[in-house]
């Protein structure tokens, strides 16, 4: 599903160029649940952004579902994100003035799905994450765990091939953390490929495989 070959990325900080990724090789097969671990500054967030087509890479190759991802226009990247990818963020990133149901339906809106169908699908997904009763609540009226479950439902809305989660439990206590991880595992078992960036080893332990990053390089690929 995901194949990276020698992917490099550097940022300009002032006059200095900082190389964050120094040639990352990795593969994620369809249906896998992979954790990416590394200390802060290891480049794991940058890697996730590149995987999510949110950021461009400088060198190397990235193939998503067999397609080359180099030199995408912003429009094409947006289309691919819409069709292929779902995102779960550490800070949830729900739109504050939209209800849970509206947040979940948003990717479908950009996918030009009809209103009725969007509403139906959004309710279905909220039910799936156990929050149907909260459909009309604003994010500010939800707890952290609930927010993240809404965010997961939103990531699922457009039936993506891959879900990319950036520290999905980073803002949650241990009880809700395990709830969220259980939910992600459940979705994975239903066939969605999942890449989870984390620095917590007990979260990584729940995943099928752990890829360790260190100083912009893959240190270990874990057991396939």
């Amino acid at each position: 599903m995901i194949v990276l070959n020698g992917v490099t990325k550097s940022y300009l900080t002032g006059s200095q160029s900082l190389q964050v990724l120094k040639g990352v090789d990795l593969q994620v097969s369809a249906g896998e649940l992979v954790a990416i671990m590394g200390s802060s500054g290891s480049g794991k967030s940058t890697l996730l952004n590149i995987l999510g087509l949110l950021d461009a890479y400088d060198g190397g190759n990235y193939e998503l579902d067999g397609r080359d991802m180099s030199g995408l226009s912003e429009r094409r990247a947006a289309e691919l994100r819409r069709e292929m990818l779902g995102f779960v963020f550490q800070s949830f990133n729900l739109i504050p003035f939209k209800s849970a149901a509206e947040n979940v339906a948003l990717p479908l809106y950009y996918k030009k799905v009809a209103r009725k169908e969007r509403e139906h699908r959004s309710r279905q997904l909220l039910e799936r994450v156990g929050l149907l009763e909260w459909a009309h609540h604003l994010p500010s009226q939800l707890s952290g765990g609930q927010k993240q479950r809404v965010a997961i439902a939103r990531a699922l809305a457009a039936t993506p091939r891959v879900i990319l989660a950036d520290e999905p439990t980073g803002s949650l206590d241990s009880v809700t953390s395990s709830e969220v991880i259980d939910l992600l595992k459940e979705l994975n078992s239903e066939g969605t490929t999942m890449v989870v960036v984390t620095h917590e080893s007990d979260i990584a332990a729940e995943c099928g495989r752990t890829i360790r990053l260190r100083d912009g390089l893959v240190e270990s690929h874990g057991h396939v």
Partner: protein
Amino acid sequence: MRWWERDPWLELAQVFLRNPFRTFLSSLGVGWGLFMILITVGASNGLEEGVKADMGNRVKNSAFIWGKSTSMAYKGYPRKRKIELTSSDVEYLVENATTLQAVAPRNQLGGWRGENNVTHDLKSAACGVFGDVPVYKDIDPVIVTEGRYINQRDLDDRRKVAVIGTRVRQSLFSRDEEVLGSHIQIQGVNFTVVGVFKSQQTGEDAEESENSIFTPYTTFNRAFHMGDKVGWLSLLIKEDVRGDTAVAEVLRLLKAQKSVHPEDPRGFGEWSMAEIHEEMSTVFRAFRWVSFVFGGLALFAGVIGIMNIMLITVKERTRELGVRRALGATPANIVVQIMMETLTLTILAGLIGGIFGVFALDTLDSFLVSAEDNGIFRHPHITLDVLLNALMTMTILGALAGVLPALRALRIQPVDALRT
């Protein structure tokens, strides 16, 4: 994004209502701008209408010409020769002038602050007495309230008939006396009253007009020994001809006919309602433009306010816009969203200002009407084209105001937005 869909509008409402007071304050400027345009243009229209009404509802395309002394010798005639118009000049103009609809010769006896010259039984009055032709009523219309106006058979038969103004009637007749068919003496000559008229003008002009008596031109000249003399010519200019063009043609023809030097500035006197009307219209057109420009500047300031708030909004919503991009919104989606928000805010504010403007003008108008104020300010109003122009200007300005915030929003990269 299609405008008839419900969602973009729901979303706009959500965005605006998130901070209703700020939204209201920011859009106040545009509403105020449109309000100002409508009020100032409406007021200048009211002033124009008032001033023109004060000039009397005279026919706009009329002019008057009379003979004076020449100031230049020409073709053997000395200077200071007194020019007198005659009926043959009228015929000549009717045949040769291309800019005129009608030519009416006119003569007058008595008039403003004259001696008593008209009697009926034991009553007498000082009136303006005129010798007229039927076409004069197209040049200076009056409302005939009883009987009829002068007609061609009166002229052909030199009938001794008279059409009197309502004030003449008041002076000479008692209230319930039958007027039509009665006799009056004008400088001792008997005339039969065949009609009564009142003026279309107001104020002193009307009083003077209604203190007049119209008699057939031919009868008048014979009765009062005028011979062939014409006091002055009243001209009705064709609708599509400018007043000064027509007057110039008539003067050229008359100067040739009367052997007056073509360059002589004297020789004839002229007074043109048409020219005055054109000058006034020019002044008021300029007035309206100035109003529109100043209102437009107010509108511009208002639109800057909206642009400013949109820039702030975009900044505040960096994260939200980034999330949208991550969820698959294309750059075009974002541009359309910001443009739509800016335009909607502008148009909504403008419409509210416009409604208030129209309402204010209407209130002022009905106040003036109920106060029966017939001063030089009356019936303030705006025309549909002014309203449409104002709305169009506003929409264009609103669209321009959206460009900068939209570009700013476009520069937001999802990664920047999501960096925590």
